[in-house]
């Protein structure tokens, strides 16, 4: 596209009277030619937004988003499968996960009055955590629910492991 063509094309662009190839050519030209851009902004300052080149997407953010979407999809598929095959287990999993969230909140809340007193180093040394106990194991489904019980304060943590290969 030549600079001399712009004034006429610009009027048609603003009236939405250009076909798509010429419309695209006007947009590209405004992004690359500063002199024509100045003339276009004189005619209509809102063409500033048309003339701005689109920012490149943040590659790291896109990758994070992709992982998050796939994780959410897997979680939903698992929940659907549990509800379909073992409704009672899905309900139980929901209950224990809620319980774990409440207990976790109590433990992590800074200075929470309801929370247990912090254990001293000696107490921690004397009372090692018991080994986790498998509460539910769905053979072939790759699902295990563990319960960790703390003998000191009775609080319970529950871990819901989808893929046993990821276990520590």
């Amino acid at each position, binding site marked *: 596209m030549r600079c001399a063509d712009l004034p006429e094309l610009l009027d048609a662009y603003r009236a939405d009277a250009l076909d798509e190839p010429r419309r695209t050519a006007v*947009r590209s030209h405004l992004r690359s030619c500063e002199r024509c851009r100045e003339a276009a902004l004189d005619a*209509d300052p809102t063409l500033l937004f048309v*003339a701005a080149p*689109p*920012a490149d997407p943040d590659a790291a*953010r896109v990758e994070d*988003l992709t992982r998050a*979407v796939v994780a959410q999809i897997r979680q939903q598929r698992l929940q659907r499968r549990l509800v379909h095959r073992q409704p009672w287990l899905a309900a139980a999993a929901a209950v224990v996960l809620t319980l774990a969230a409440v207990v976790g909140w109590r433990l992590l809340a800074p200075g929470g009055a309801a929370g247990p007193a912090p254990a001293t180093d000696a107490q921690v040394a004397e009372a090692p955590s018991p080994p986790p106990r498998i509460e539910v194991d769905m053979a072939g489904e790759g699902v295990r629910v563990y319960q960790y019980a703390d003998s000191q304060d009775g609080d319970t943590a529950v871990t819901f492991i989808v893929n046993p290969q990821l276990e520590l």
Partner: protein
Amino acid sequence: MTQGKLCVLPGTAGDLAVVTMDDREAVRRARAGDEDAFAALVRRYSGGLHRAVARILADDVEAWDVVQMAFVRAWQGLDRYDERWSFSTWLYRIGTNLAIDLLRSRNSREKAHRAGAEHRFRIVGEMPPASELAEHREVDRLFDELVGGLTPQQRSAFVLRELEGWETADVAQALGCTTTTVRNHVFQARKLLREELARKYPEYLPPKRRA
């Protein structure tokens, strides 16, 4: 926008092996439960969808949440996807509808956000001339400043048509309205943006328009 685009998917044999496929093939594989195929669609379209949703919402951070929700909804609704339309148009329809719903539900919160953003923008100091501004990310921030007075539909139509360069028919499909309505939205949006620009940033107007 109506043609399928190519995606690059991880190969199943060898580190360097890749399989290229268009959107339709990726959608078919995703419907069959192939998460890698869907992940390829996410990688392909999330940047562009985020750019559009961020300008509609005038909020880059919140836009990522909307984009994530849009892809999850798309996955859930793959069976309802009509292959006569491009996947991207369908996806943008989901994303813009979520953004429009969010805008409607946050009116008062948005006013507070606008006021804060205006203050931050003003204290930056000297602004470059408008023609140079186009080369900076500042133009996104300027748009976010001005877009508050537009309706959600006007914002969406202007962003897709003018910022993203979509054809009117595709914008109409994404927004679920007619092409005439899209043109009206864009016309009104341009008029309101011009007025807001003159009111808030007269320094960006040509001298003959400032008076």
